[in-house]
């Protein structure tokens, strides 16, 4: 067949046919005006001159199997007729779209590959209607979707989109706690008696609830009412110490280390090694949530999934601010405080800011 013959579409014929071939190899003849309703087929005919004979049948995309092709051609056959009213077309569409969901999906795919936008619009609307208002389990069942997300993955981060912003805060704190826990485990493996010992004490104390308000803690840290605080249980103080160290380490890392080196040699040992051991990642600013953790009564547990919705955002802000203040103060006062503590430490005074110092002093 000459190229000329191939390229010419015979207008004199009353009904001309186009040859289409589906991916499975089967070839069929279709009325030209029906087939031309699909932009992809139209393009093949006009631009490439294909389809006018069996040997030069237009190869349809893989997503179009014979069953889908016949459905699509039914659609085209109806809609390519110009005289129809909108009402007629709508009514046809409503009836046409009634099929099981599986076929609906295949039809969407096939129509999309043939660039038949009106049919894609119709089927995607129908699929949306199928999805609408159903529970996830129902949707999975209808579409045969595997339920392969873990419960955790399902919860994060979307649970919060329908929950209170407080839940968001809690999840954030919760995530940090998990990180903390990992760090703890890492630190456990460190073969240093001193740090291990220190940490073990702290760990057991973490289980207990710290009921004190933030103000109390801060004043305690600043050594304001030292005497009254002595009466409190030692576990609280130790917790304080750990927190302080973490804070110092994370937020004022470099300054401490340099100052530590400047002042007492012992100090630098405690601080230097302490810093490294306590926080393998000194750059992290994970201290603020730790403080929050310790002050909220319910948050000290490490069990998964135990989230209590008791935090008041206003309180959280207040605490954030106070902790920042404290960190700043600590940062600026550090050299003087160090001198103070050193001079007091020898007297066995329990209240101080550097727990490790105290430890050192008493042993």
């Amino acid at each position, binding site marked *: 067949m000459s190229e000329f013959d191939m390229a010419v579409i015979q207008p004199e014929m009353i009904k001309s046919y186009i040859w289409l071939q589906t991916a499975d190899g089967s070839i069929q003849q279709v009325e030209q005006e029906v087939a031309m309703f699909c932009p992809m087929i139209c393009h093949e005919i006009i631009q490439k001159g294909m389809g006018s004979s069996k040997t030069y049948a237009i190869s349809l995309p893989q997503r179009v199997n014979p069953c889908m092709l016949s459905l699509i051609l039914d659609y085209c056959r109806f809609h390519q007729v110009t005289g129809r009213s909108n009402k007629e077309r709508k009514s046809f569409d409503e009836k046409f779209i009634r099929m099981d969901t*599986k076929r609906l999906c295949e039809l969407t795919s096939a129509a999309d590959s043939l660039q038949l936008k009106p049919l894609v*619009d119709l089927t995607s609307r129908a699929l949306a209607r199928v999805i609408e208002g159903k529970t996830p389990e129902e949707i999975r069942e209808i579409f045969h*979707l595997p*339920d392969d997300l873990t419960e955790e993955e*399902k919860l994060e981060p979307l649970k*919060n*989109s*329908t929950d209170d912003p407080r839940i968001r805060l809690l999840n954030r704190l919760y995530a940090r706690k998990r990180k903390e826990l990992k760090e703890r485990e890492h630190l456990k493996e460190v073969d240093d008696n001193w740090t291990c010992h220190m940490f073990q004490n702290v760990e057991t104390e973490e289980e207990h609830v710290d009921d004190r308000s933030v103000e109390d803690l801060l004043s305690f840290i600043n050594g304001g009412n030292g005497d009254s605080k002595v009466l409190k249980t030692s576990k609280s103080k130790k917790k304080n110490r750990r927190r302080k160290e973490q804070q110092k380490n994370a937020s004022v890392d470099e300054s401490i280390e340099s100052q530590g080196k400047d002042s007492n040699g012992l100090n630098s040992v405690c601080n230097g090694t302490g810093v490294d051991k306590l926080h393998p990642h000194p750059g992290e600013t994970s201290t603020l949530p730790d403080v929050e953790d310790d002050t909220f009564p319910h948050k000290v547990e490490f069990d998964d999934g135990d989230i209590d919705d008791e935090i008041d955002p206003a309180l959280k802000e207040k605490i954030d601010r106070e902790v920042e203040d404290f960190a700043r103060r600590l940062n600026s006062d550090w050299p003087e405080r160090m001198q103070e503590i050193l001079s007091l430490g020898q007297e066995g005074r329990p209240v101080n800011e550097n727990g490790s110092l105290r430890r050192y002093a008493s042993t």
Partner: protein
Amino acid sequence: MEMDLDKISNLPGHVIDQILSQLSIKEAVKTSILSSKWRFKWATLPHLVFDNQCFPVSSQDQTIVKNKLVSIVDHVLLLHNGPIYKFKLSHRDLLGITDIDRWILHLSRCSIKEFVLEIWKGQRYKMPSSLFLCQNLVHLELFNCFLKPPLTFKGFGSLKSLDLQHVTLAQDVFERLISSCPLLERLTLMNFDGFAHLNINAPNLQYFDIGGVFEDISFENTSHLAVVAIGLYVNVGDDQKQVYSNSSNLLKFFVHLPLIRRLEVQSYFLKYLAVGTLPGRLPIPCVNLNFLSLRINFNDAEEVLTALCLLRSSPNLQELEILARPEELAAVAKFINFQEDDHSSFTFNQLQLVKIFGISGTQRELNFINLVLLTSPVLERMTVKPASIDGSWELVKELLRFRRASTIAEVIYLDP
């Protein structure tokens, strides 16, 4: 095997987007827990709509509504991945909150094309400067907002459609906004304040719909304007009439509207057009005008004369709608000669549908109806509906009597 049965997850991304965009945002986001493949399919949705349907918040407490809405929008925006072409925020219980500024800033970085913001409660919300950075905007729709663009604002180069309702902007801001959006095709303005002189300079404008309080309106360089609806919500005072009495507002109005196809004159706008010395008909007839709707006070002679002038200048009118505005009688009952000397040259050769609503059956009204019936040879249907039952029987008797130029005309009387 599950894989073979699952026909939906492997559909192309744009098809999934199309399916999910037909669901509310809540339902779309919920698909993220269906399976691992579906986890982030919603995150590429290019259209985000946050309205009363997206989450049912049955609470009158503003704090709860606000917190919930802010949480949802923050989350969706943060988890979203890819360009956002359309964003609509319109929750009935939402006051203007500063979180909106943050969202608009985010959108300005996402090549936003269509932005719709409706603040249903509270005072005008001041639009942040980041809105004016959205250079890809094609459609902007604001309700209950206050606009004050920065001095560096050069306009929206791609904006085709602008819809401002219950907005406040200064006169120069308005003019700058219109003239700096060269591609503007549709302009809707309803209930605006802060400016009173409308000078519309928009070379591509095709659709213009305004309703509000203004002092004057003029078009410049609007040769494509085809559909116009104007409602002047305040009665034009008599003192104004004297100031402008030399130049006819009607003439000025139509100078730059050669292609006008559909015109709706609402509220008191006809009175505004009536100001000035009226010609018998316009110098250039509105040959493209095929739909005309007039809200008219038949007791005001000037308005009636203006309407007649306009009608005589619209030879190709196909549909006419007359909505009578019952007002107090004018101080001077002027006689109107409904027929020009050469009235026979004035016929509506294409007029098929006429509606006349809200009349009371006065002589002037009847003369008008009579004129229309005599000058419309292809009239198919005229529907008449009076304002009240009083005098309706007399009206019907007169209607029955009128001669009709069209042999196929139906005159339908509707009860008030």
